[in-house]
């Protein structure tokens, strides 16, 4: 384990950024955090997490897939893919780090999504252990350990500095590039910080939330629950919850007429929208109740059923703090769990 003191963190950023593009969470004027491309002098955010999740790096809100050009009777199809450049995301929390695995299980299973894979292959994920969880955090419900955040390299803050631990081959390469800037770590000091965080985690208001009542085998029980009407009654169908969610993975593919050709792009979609999965015959979910149910059934029932028990939520708490009417997965779980 190697360590760098807090004063030298920006030197480290400068070093990384001299080799490849580096993204770090920074504070905006409104004090909310967002990932920004690092430029010398930027300060790492002290916020626990970013408003938009880190999934944007691999699954951006919009991306162009192909272009079509019409000349006479021929249509030229242009593959506009290019090899992505290497980049580093620094400061990813354990919840978001787990979300990449969930996205992988969808985008990297056959047929592989090459756009996603391209970015994934070129990204190095440097995670950051949490020391001040929020009241909305419930990652531990899904077996995530915020004191051991994973990714290619884990970083552990201890108040006066940061310790680094490589977890993968990519992580080792990353560490080799910066090894001359690091000094020997202090495992005892770190153990104390982790112990302290573990104690806080036990005291989180959502610490006792359990997944026992959910999973593939509960499909019909939950699908036909009478609770959905009440839970969904004031949902305004905005889709904010799906857009801030690190694991939401739905997209739409559309053609945009540029006047002299067609741009085919994909963009995030949301099951909360009235035209989600709309087909020639119409829409399969015509009421907000059905659309609302889809979101939570997917996270808590369909996803684990299709992906070896893995739930489609990482407990990051974003939907808890961002839903305009404060309805969210925790309230749904509490209403549906076995009493």
């Amino acid at each position, binding site marked *: 384990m190697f360590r760098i003191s807090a004063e030298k963190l920006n030197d480290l950023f400068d070093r990384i950024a001299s080799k490849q593009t580096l993204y770090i969470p920074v504070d905006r004027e409104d*004090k909310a955090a967002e990932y920004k491309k690092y430029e010398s002098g930027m300060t790492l955010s002290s916020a626990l997490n970013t408003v938009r999740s880190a999934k944007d790096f691999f699954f951006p809100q919009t991306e162009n897939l192909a272009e079509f050009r019409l000349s006479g009777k021929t249509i030229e199809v242009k593959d506009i893919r290019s090899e992505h450049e290497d980049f580093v995301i620094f400061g990813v929390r354990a919840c978001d780090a787990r979300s990449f695995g969930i996205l992988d299980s969808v985008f990297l299973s056959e047929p592989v999504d090459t756009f996603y894979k391209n970015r994934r292959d070129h990204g190095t994920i440097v995670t950051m252990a949490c020391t001040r969880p929020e009241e909305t955090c419930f990652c531990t419900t899904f077996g995530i350990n915020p004191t051991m955040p994973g990714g290619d390299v884990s970083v552990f803050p201890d108040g006066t500095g940061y310790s680094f631990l490589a977890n993968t081959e990519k992580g080792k390469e990353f560490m080799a590039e910066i090894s001359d800037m690091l000094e020997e770590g202090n495992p005892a000091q770190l153990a104390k910080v982790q112990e302290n965080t573990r104690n806080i985690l036990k005291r989180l208001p*959502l610490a006792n939330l359990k997944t026992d009542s959910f999973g593939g085998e509960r499909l019909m029980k939950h699908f036909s629950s009478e609770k959905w009407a009440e839970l969904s009654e004031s949902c*305004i169908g905005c889709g*904010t919850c799906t857009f801030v969610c690190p694991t939401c993975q739905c997209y739409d593919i559309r053609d945009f007429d540029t006047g002299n050709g067609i741009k085919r*792009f994909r963009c995030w979609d949301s099951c909360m*929208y*009235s035209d989600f999965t709309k087909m020639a015959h119409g829409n399969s979910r015509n009421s907000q109740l059905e659309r609302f149910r889809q979101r939570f059934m997917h996270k808590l029932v369909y996803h684990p059923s299709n992906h070896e028990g893995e739930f489609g939520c990482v407990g990051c708490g974003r939907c808890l703090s961002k839903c305009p009417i404060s309805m969210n997965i925790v309230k749904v779980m509490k209403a549906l769990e076995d009493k």
Partner: protein
Amino acid sequence: MQEAMIKRAKELLADGTVNRVMGWKKGEFVYDTTPAVFETAEELEKEFVCNDFTQANLSKYLIKESRKEGKILAFLKPCDTYSFNQLLKEHRIIRENVYVIGIPGGPKLDMEKIKAKGISGILDVKNENFTLKIETLYGTETMPFYEAVSGKCADCKSKKHVVYDELIGEDGDVLASRRFDMVEKLENMTSQERYDFWRGELSKCIRCNACRNVCPACTCENCVFDNPKSGIDQKAAADSFEENMFHIIRAFHVAGRCTDCGECSRVCPQNIPLHLLNRKFIKDINSLYGEYQAGADTTSKCPLTDYDTDDCEPSIVHERGVE
């Protein structure tokens, strides 16, 4: 206040005046209250809440609720009554099916403002003589009440209820608010500065549609942005200016009908000050056509849908556009 509301709601349910009550429901924390419909006295006692965080405007829900069987009781803050009135004017709410109790408004608190102070892990917030005592996972914090007041309440235009069947508490007055100050500041910028301001703000937009969906003036059955036949139904921007267009078009669609309830800015996950766009329209209507407040009554004609020989000429655009 909460106790008086629950008591009155139970009476009105019991004597059959209404068969449902629209209010807010308690959540996991002190601040995550959800608009909800209550049908029994038990539900009201167990879950009804009205506190410093019950900000959500209930009026838009009454479009649907007033079309259901029986009469519903709705608790409306002063700002919500303007939205309610405007919706009556647009024939969206069936008045006979709603029993309105006017309740005092805020100032309500905005959790984001508390969190922006670096206070995290919030377990409880108490107002003690206008100092907030905030229990957190990391100890007790305090901050002045007024620094946590939500944007919409800080710029409150009126404490008067423009429509109600009865009131709990006293009615207030239309206020001399400073709500156009920031608009003025924007007007006094150079066009480049203004452009940069809006590009900076609107580029944060994730196009989640929360602002549109919460807006009591946005009640179209099928919004142009959702209608494949409109040609602009994008779920995302085809180019980098499109988010800006979405907001500009939306501001035009609600011009003259926006009551300045503040919901759009409240719900925006990216804290974009959307209300400033709408306020610019309100300010312009006031100065070009005379004072007009959408939702203040149900009979007056909105200057934008009315014609008068004194109306300003389209050339006003050029005259005012000169720097």
